[in-house]
């Protein structure tokens, strides 16, 4: 079972380049499979858009949801500092991989509709080269109309653009009919689709190479995974060639973790990603405790 950590590098003095390297090496030494990085290009003080994942599975009963995020005006808010920064996700991934040898780095998730696939393909090929194929591309459609506005990208059509970009990315990687990209011979990175809406499940099964739901209870995960499997079967695709990672914000006692992880695994997850919101001061202790709790060092 792969256990990944979702955490962020914010461009602060506290989390400088040396911190990023040490953070990655610590995760690697403690047996975690990867570090997964969230993406936002910008944040806002006020949103008209609601954050779609404010409820996370309870540690004591992962079939129940607990609400951790704040709400303003009845709309859930993303969990972020008042002046939240985030480094560019591809450069952050390259930096962590440069300091490690085995650890994978993933996007949790990259906002693919905001990219021009013609230029993004080159970026992704370069990252695959720099990381020696250790980058996993989690993709999503985002939720903030404000963010899409600042990016000059249409919000309403973001789902369609995401899928178009996924299909085109795979096509260009395989064919490169226009002769635009380096010839590396490397495989397209895993492309995991975030979310669990009906269209996200279909997109994951037909255009992606994996599925990456967030904050589902164990039973919700099981239901949606069954739908995902049905889409795969209809598309004539082999589950063994896909990769499924269940991600969640985890705030409970670590003693509950083995059961939570085990139940996702029983239902078909290849990996579980944990967002623990570790501090710069105590991340090593937290990682060590989680590693012990789920037996990664064994």
């Amino acid at each position, binding site marked *: 079972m792969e256990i990944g950590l979702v955490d962020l590098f914010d461009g602060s003095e506290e989390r400088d380049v040396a911190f990023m390297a040490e953070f990655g090496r610590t995760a690697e030494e403690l047996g975690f499979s990867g570090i997964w990085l969230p993406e936002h290009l910008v944040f806002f003080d006020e949103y008209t858009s609601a954050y779609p994942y404010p409820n996370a599975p309870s540690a004591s009963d992962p079939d129940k949801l607990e609400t951790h995020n704040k709400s303003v005006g009845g709309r859930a808010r993303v969990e972020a500092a008042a002046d*939240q920064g985030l480094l560019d996700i591809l*450069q952050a991934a390259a930096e962590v991989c440069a300091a490690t040898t085995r650890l994978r780095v993933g996007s949790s998730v990259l906002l693919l509709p905001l990219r*021009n696939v013609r230029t993004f393909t*080159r970026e992704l090929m370069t990252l695959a080269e720099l990381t020696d194929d250790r980058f996993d591309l989690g993709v999503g459609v985002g939720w903030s109309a404000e963010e899409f506005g600042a990016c000059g*990208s249409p919000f309403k059509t973001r789902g369609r653009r995401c899928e178009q970009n996924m299909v085109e990315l795979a096509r260009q990687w395989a064919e490169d009919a226009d002769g635009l990209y380096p010839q590396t011979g490397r495989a397209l990175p895993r492309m995991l689709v975030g979310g669990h809406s009906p269209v996200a499940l279909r997109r994951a099964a037909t255009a992606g190479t994996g599925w990456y739901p967030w904050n589902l209870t164990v039973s919700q995960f099981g239901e949606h995974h069954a739908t995902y499997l049905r889409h795969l079967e209809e598309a004539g695709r082999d589950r063994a060639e896909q990769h499924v990672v269940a991600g969640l914000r985890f705030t409970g006692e670590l003693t509950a973790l083995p059961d939570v992880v085990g139940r996702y695994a029983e239902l078909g997850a290849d990996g579980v990603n944990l967002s623990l919101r570790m501090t710069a001061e105590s991340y090593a202790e937290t990682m060590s405790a989680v590693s012990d709790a789920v037996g990664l060092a064994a």
Partner: protein
Amino acid sequence: MEHGVACSLRTRPGTRLAEAVTEAAWTAEEAGLASWWTVGDREAAADRSFDPLLGLQCAARATTRLRLATSGDLLSLASPAVRAKQLATLDWLSRGRAEVGLDLAVPPPVLADPFLEEERDSLEVALEHLAGMRALWTQDRAGHQGRVLSFAGAIALPKPVGARVPKTHVRATSTEVLERVVAAGVVPDGWLAWQQSADELVHGIGELTAVVGDAAEQVRRTWFVPVADYYAARDSVPGLGVRVDELVAVLDHVPAPVEVAALAA
């Protein structure tokens, strides 16, 4: 006059990209070169290069002093918030050494986003994207209101070091384009004579002076020449009759350390 190197990110057989850039950039710094440039988006596609900006990150990791610059960003092709974050991150990683070079000519159609249907004036889009990026780089709660880009209250962090606008160079272009750049409130920090002949260089600086007047004296002039012409160009500069601040050799591959060292000799 300072000297620099620009290259496509193509590697020699048997060499890995990160190691090749690391060795070459480190050698450039040790040999006394002033700058490490990428080729532009246009050349990256034509040369089947790896991504210029991620290559600059490798150079940043290997050096402490070299200026790190793009030479031909096609801003109309990218989301301004994405590009602003990429460049701000490079600046953060390199402790304030990032510079930006713009290519304001019409992008190759093959690089256009295939899923954006509207016909757009690429120069208008590029200039608005630049204005949006400058707002994101410098304002606590950034905003921009324009014809192709509108937003308000955006928190974009990290900023470039010092919350400054990284030095912004413009590739030599026509008088008409330069007039539109200036009308948009942008006086370039630098003028890039990209693979131009000596005559074209001199003519271009004349056009720059005609449009921006005395401010042209404050604009850094960088002359990019194919590496095969580098030494002849270096010898010709004193006789050009115009000031050249930097001469840059352009290679279609990541140079071996011995090639880099030769440029400083």
